[in-house]
Every structure is written in C-alpha cells, then in structure tokens.
C-alpha cells in the first residue's frame, strides 16, 4: 500500500539508536530504563492497533497487561518461562475476548467506560476475592527470568537482549499486520464502519480479532514486566496503567507504528530524569502533558512527519 515513508524510517532509526545506546552504554541505569521502554513499547504498539488503527479507545488494557503478568508468575515455576510467556499471550487474548463480548455491544465513549469498569472489576477481584491465587494487594514476589540455552538471564544485560528479540518480533508482526488486508480492513472500520459493514466486512468480528491481538501483546508485555521486576501486583491492573499507555500513545502519535514507542520513551525518560532534577517532577510532568497536547497535535510522530516532509502525519 504505502511505500515506506521517510518519517517511518526516521522513527525506526530513532528506536534502533535507543537500543544500540543501551547495548554500548555501561550504566545499568539506562539498561534498566530502556528495558522498561521496550516492554511498555510492546504494550503501546498492541494498544495502538485498536486505538490508532481501528479507532477504539479501550480503557481496560491494564486488565490484559496484569493477566499476562500473573499468568507468568503462577505458571513459570512449573512449566518454564517460554510456555508461560505463550500462556500469558493467550491469557491476554482470552481476557480481551471476554471484555469485548461485553464492550462491543456499545460503541464510542461507552465502549471506553465499559472497558474501564470491566478492568477495574478485574483489579478488585485480583486484590481481594482471588487473593489465594494472586497474593492479594501484596502481589507475588520472586517472578522468574527465562532459562534458555544455559544463558543466565538474571543478568540484566542478557535479559535486555531477550527483550530486544521479543520487541523486534513484536514490531515486525505488527508492521506486517498494519499493511496487510487485515490492517486495511481495520482502517476501513475506523474511517466509516457503516460503509465497511456494507461492503461485506464483518465489523464486529474484525474489532474482536483486533482486540484479542492487542490483548495478546498486552499479556506478553505484562509478563515481561513482571519478570523484569521479579514481582507482579494488582497495581499493574489498576486503571492508571490504562491511562499511562493511552498518554504514551497519544504523546508518541496514534495511528503510526513506532510513534507510541517514542511516546513511551519520552514518558519514561521524563519520569526518570525529572525525578532526579526536581522533587516536584510530578507537576512538571503534568505541564509537559498539557503543552504536548496543545502544541503537538499528532504527537512526536507528527514532528518526524514534518521533519521527513512526508505526508503530514499518518491519519488525522
């Protein structure tokens, strides 16, 4: 469909530069930060499939994110890391399916509010009623790292390489999905869902599939985060997590493949660096959000688009 535009190349270069920087830099601090960016980047890419491509604002991604984390925490000891990572993806997709069965009965604003309430219901269940499995509010400590080919993944650098591999695979799959007929169908649904239905697309099933793929991405990234931190807790399920991924995607630029990843990078770096300069990093971050919203209509990707003098931003 559209040949690789200059801004997409520039964004890919920026992400690649970030990864290379982590490889060469000796400071574990940036290694840890960029590992975090890759994990949240996967979540944001998955989130943008339905938000940027299909035009569905979900406020429930924390539920799938947490589900993946808990799946890995509970299953890795018995079944090993990779099978559990797979189960985390399936868990994310299954929960996404469950959410979509309810949420797709309504559309627009009510879809967002319904996903918010369903995810918050999962949060309350995980922190109280399902306490026997989830360890309640204290969560589950001691989540495992992968154990493959005899490599010690408790070494953060090795684990970082593992994350890079998973991240690149995730981006590749999403890149293919976006330019595949499935991706164009989603764009059609966002552009005009009545016409999409009329030309023969099963719009509800398309949305459900997109939501499940997005849920799988959230599940995987949730598992990877739990493994990075050796810990999973209901806080991952809390609606503020859904809010964070939304902010990152908007900052980065919705509807672009790598925009959300750049949004994640800026968000995390700001949060990390600001807290070292000023005790009032919280307020400064708020001001940055406000300024970005007003002056960066298409997010950071919009900047790249201007830079690359490609078409102004991907889609309005």
């Amino acid at each position: 469909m559209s040949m690789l535009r200059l801004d997409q190349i520039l964004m890919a270069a920026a992400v690649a530069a970030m990864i290379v920087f982590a490889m060469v830099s000796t400071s574990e601090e940036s290694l840890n930060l960029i590992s975090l960016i890759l994990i949240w980047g996967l979540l944001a890419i998955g989130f943008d499939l339905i938000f940027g491509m299909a035009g569905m604002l979900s406020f429930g991604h924390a539920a799938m994110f947490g589900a993946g984390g808990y799946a890995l925490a509970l299953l890795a000891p018995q079944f090993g890391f990779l099978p559990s990572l797979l189960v985390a993806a399936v868990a994310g997709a299954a929960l996404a399916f469950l959410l979509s069965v309810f949420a797709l009965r309504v559309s627009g604003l009510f879809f967002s509010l319904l996903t918010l309430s369903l995810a918050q219901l999962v949060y309350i269940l995980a922190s109280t009623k399902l306490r026997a499995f989830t360890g309640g509010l204290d969560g589950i400590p001691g989540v495992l790292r992968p154990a493959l080919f005899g490599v010690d993944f408790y070494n953060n650098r090795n684990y970082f390489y593992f994350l890079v591999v998973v991240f690149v695979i995730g981006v590749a799959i999403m890149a293919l999905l976006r330019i595949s007929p499935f991706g164009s169908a989603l764009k059609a649904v966002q552009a005009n869902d009545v016409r999409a239905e009329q030309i023969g697309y099963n719009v509800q099933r398309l949305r459900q599939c997109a939501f499940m793929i997005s849920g799988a991405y959230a599940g995987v990234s949730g598992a990877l985060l739990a493994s990075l931190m050796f810990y999973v807790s209901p806080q991952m399920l809390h609606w503020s997590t859904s809010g964070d991924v939304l902010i990152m995607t908007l900052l980065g630029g919705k509807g672009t493949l790598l925009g959300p990843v750049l949004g994640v990078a800026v968000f995390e770096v700001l949060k990390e660096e600001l807290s070292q300069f000023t005790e009032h990093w919280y307020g400064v971050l708020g001001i940055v959000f406000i300024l970005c919203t007003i002056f960066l209509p298409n997010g950071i990707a919009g900047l790249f688009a201007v830079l690359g003098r490609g078409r102004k931003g991907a889609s309005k």
Partner: protein
Amino acid sequence: MSTIVIGLSLSFLLFLLAAGLTLIFGMLGVINFAHGALYMLGAYVCYQIVHWTGSFWIGLAFAPLVVAALGAAMEVVTLRPVYNRDHIYQLLLTFGFILVIEESVRLIWGLDYKQVPTPDLFSQPIALFGSQIPSYRLFIIGFGALVSVLLFLLLDRSKLGMVIRAASSDSEMAQTLGVDVAKVRTAVFALGSGLAALGGVVAAPLVPIELGMGFSVIIDCFVVVIIGGLGNIKGAIFAALLLGMARAAGFTYAPEWVELITFVLLIVTLMTRPSGLFSRKGRAA
C-alpha cells in the same frame, strides 16, 4: 430504619461529588479526570479558610468560589484551544491537570494531614429511629437535596440553563443564534469545578484530607454519571440514590462485597442502557 437515613446521606454525598462531573462530562463532553483533584483542592481550600476564620460555613461558601475561578482559568488557558479536536485530547489535558493540581497542593500545604472539624452545629448525634444518627449526616441530606433542586432549576428550568444546553447540544447552531459558546463553556467548567470543590468541603469532616483523597473518588463519580446519564442532573440524583442505598444495604449485610456491587451495577447499566438508566434517549447507537 437508620440504615435508610445513612443510605440517604451516602446518596446525597455521592450526588454532590458527581454533580460537577455530570455537568462537565455531559455538557462539554469532556471526560474530566481532574474532577478528583478539584474535589481535593476544595477540601484543602476549605481547611485554609477554616484555619483563618475558624468557621466551617465561610469555608463552605468561599472554597467552591475559589476553585471555580481556578477552574475557569484552567479552561481558558488549556481546554479552549483543544475543543475542536478529538475528545481524547481533552481527556489527556485533564490528566495533566491532575498532576499539576496535586503538585501545587503539595507545594502550598505540604504532605501532612489536614483536619477540618465537624461544624459545632452538627457535631452531636441525634436519637432517631432507635439509634444515634450523626446530625452532620442529616445536614448532608438537607444540603444535598437543596443543591440538587437548585441545579435542576438552573439547568432544566432557567434561561441560563437553556443556553447551556443549547451550547452543548449544537455549538455551531448556538453560535449563530448569538450565544457566546466559549464563555458558556468556561462558565460550565467553572461551575463543574466549583461543584467538585463543594463535594470536597462537605466530605472534609468525614475523611482524612490528604493528597490521595481525590484519586479514590473518581471511579465513584463516573459510576453515578454513567448510571444517571451524561449531563442529566435528574438522572444523577436517581443514580446517586440507587448507588447510595445499594451501598448502605451492602455495608449492612455483606461489607466485603460493596466494591463489587458498585461495578456490577455499572456494567449492567452500560450494557443495557448505555445512555443511562434515567435518560430520555434510548440505546446509544
């Protein structure tokens, strides 16, 4: 019987909390996540006024005005340039507001707890239906009822209310009819912020005044607004009553399940009548 009176106080407190959000959410279509932060700000400003004047009532009168003015300023500076864009960008702005408001409260009042005593007039319990009912609860019922009637009259019966509803349902049309839509929006946002602060002042004697108090209120407000129907003051009153009574019953028989009751109620509403149980419109498209 006393549970019903307490249920009523729960309901009206919920209504006071949510009234501002119904207004801003319904009339401006802005999902105002900063509503909780404005509620907190109201409590802190009330603490400051009580600290200076020693009177809860002066706090009750002036704190909402102060926060309403701040709300208006925030709206003019940040929201106005973003109205014509997708709703999602207004939502992102309100996230920014939360962080800014919380940080400024931390700067001005610091981290330690603040305390607003129950006003002396209502500090003693009253024997009612065979148990001791805190008179402050009766004040909440009375005051909440008064505010709901005033709001209802303002929005559904007054000329200003008609202008507000016109501006919100079709701003272009209202503009052509000579309504200064921008001013109306600022006024609505200010009124919404003032109401949020009012909720904060009324709740101040009941809960600890600390930075996190706003965060816990947001979900409850959304529940009332959604069940009641966007921008539907009457709906918000009924939704608050429904939720308040459900919680009172929940606390009586199964306190552990109270939080779940709230969400099951919300999800059932969103699936059956997304535009609210009490709204005139049928199912949203």
